[in-house]
């Protein structure tokens, strides 16, 4: 245990995700030795992020204003909504530059162990976005794990009866990989989702 402020800093850093006690200690001593200007910049960034960043009132993505950049962009289609779990998934899909519609961030996935049910996700917000009939397709892009699949199934059961086109991201073989190294589950999915080639 260190004295007062140093230990307080280590404890706070240790509460961050992915930071263990040893890393917390290393970061704390790095900050202690760092230039006060650099530390000031970090402090400002932290304050700024809490003061200025909010969540987009439409899609739930992180934003500096009431509506996020994607929702404000007039060039993007209002007819397709891609549903993701977290804001970081938006960033991942944006990097592909393939998608020109809008997003909807749920804020997680259905997870009874952690007591997360449909009411804890932004599902009613999604429903009200669909009410005026502009949206024709909903892409379900939740994580390909047990909880993400369950969330997608739940949403599909709500959305399909509404007459929307509901799609799920394909899961299958990694690009640039070797078939023999793919695990059985992935390969099985790839078989299920195979596509016809027109010559």
């Amino acid at each position, binding site marked *: 245990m260190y004295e007062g402020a140093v230990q307080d800093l280590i404890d706070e850093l240790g509460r961050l995700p992915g930071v263990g006690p040893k890393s917390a200690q290393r970061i704390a001593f790095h900050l202690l030795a760092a230039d006060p200007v650099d530390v000031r910049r970090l402090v400002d960034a932290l304050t700024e992020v809490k003061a200025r960043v909010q969540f987009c009132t439409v899609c739930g993505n992180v934003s500096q204003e009431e509506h996020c950049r994607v929702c404000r962009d007039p060039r993007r289609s209002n007819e397709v909504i891609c549903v993701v779990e977290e804001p970081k998934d938006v960033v991942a899909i944006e990097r592909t530059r393939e998608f020109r519609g809008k997003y909807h961030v749920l804020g997680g996935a*259905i997870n*009874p*162990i952690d007591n997360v049910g449909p*009411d804890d996700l932004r599902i009613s917000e999604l429903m009200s976005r669909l009410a005026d009939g502009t949206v024709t397709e909903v892409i379900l892009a939740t994580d390909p*794990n*047990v*909880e993400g699949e*369950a969330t997608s*199934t739940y949403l599909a059961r709500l959305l399909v009866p509404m007459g929307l086109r509901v799609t799920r991201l394909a899961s299958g073989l990694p690009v640039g990989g070797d078939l023999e190294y793919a695990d*059985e589950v992935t390969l099985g999915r790839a078989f299920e989702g195979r596509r016809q080639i027109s010559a």
Partner: protein
Amino acid sequence: MHVSHLSLTDYRSYEQVELPLEPGVSALVGPNGQGKTNLVEAVGYVATLGSHRVSSDAALVRAGASRAVVRLRADRNDRSTLVELELNPGKANRAQVNRSPVRRPRDVLGILRTVLFAPEDLALVKGDPEGRRRLLDELAVQVSPRIVAVLSDYDRVLRQRGALLKSAGAARRGGRRGGSAEDSAPDLRTLDVWDAKLAQIGAQILRNRVRLVDQLRPHVARAYEQVSDGQGAAVLGYRSSLEASVDDGRPAPSPLDEPGVPHLDVSIELLEAQLLEAMSRMRRQEIERGVNLVGPHRDDLLLHLGGMPAKGYASHGESWSYALALRLASYELLTHGTPEDETGISGWGDGAEPVLILDDVFAELDSRRRGRLATLVAKAEQVLVTAAVAEDVPEQLDGARIDVMGGQVTRVR
């Protein structure tokens, strides 16, 4: 295949030990508590990523050390593979194959295959269904390592669905006392979704199990006959929870149960539909008890002997014969597959024969069973035997002898 070298660092009682091995029989001999079983346990760990003695990795790390390392060289048809596993309790384990890291430890499954006999095997016959389910699932992983991903997804679905059932049950009971009932049950709407997931993944496991039982059946019958010298017929069956009755939540006989009847043609789609149907029938009980009552986690491998269930009817000696027959049948299945079955798992190629490990079993057996078992395993490519005294190693198993004493291993013959 065989193990040509085992090296342990901070594993159980060993700070560091090097154990070169050869094909054929190797007997590890030493008084109890000297570390014989630790050596064969480590070999089994590389094959199954689990210990046959404890369920948590923490017990495998030497007291005072932060991690344990198991290094093992497996030779198959003159091709040698070095597997290195680092056990980090509380953190993710790490694995290397031929000195390059693999993505997940489970990627090493399939490099080494073992069949391990231990005194605990008697519980396969006399104990709870859980041990028999584990026998089937572990064998399924050795037959087809990738099934491990399906098993872990299933486990995840069970835990999520169980949590939902538990909270729904609690809310319903609370609601009954408070007045209003239905509305206070949280998220029962999502139960349908979890039913679908359980049925989807559970059906894959169920079909895999049913097929495995069909494939094991002839091997078990033959092995039992050989070990017991032809007394009574050993017949495997499978009891599924599909037909669970509404009255008491206990499984009633289902079409799958009939011992000795093969079900190779059963389809995943059919099983999925049956699982969904069973869950909708059992919904009230499941919510009341807050437990998953339907699915392969409630099933049992049925062991029949001369038309009667072995549990409760078989004598001590017969139970041992049955336990040995189950292990011997696993060995036969892994070695040869089932050539007569085109849907099965034939064609392993050369050198697929698993390493046989006999951990302290001969001391448990009478002299006739001891002799027959020894004759049956003597021809295997590699047999690792542990025994407290050299006299416990049957004479049919003549080979290398390694003394294990106080954490030191010494080749004496």
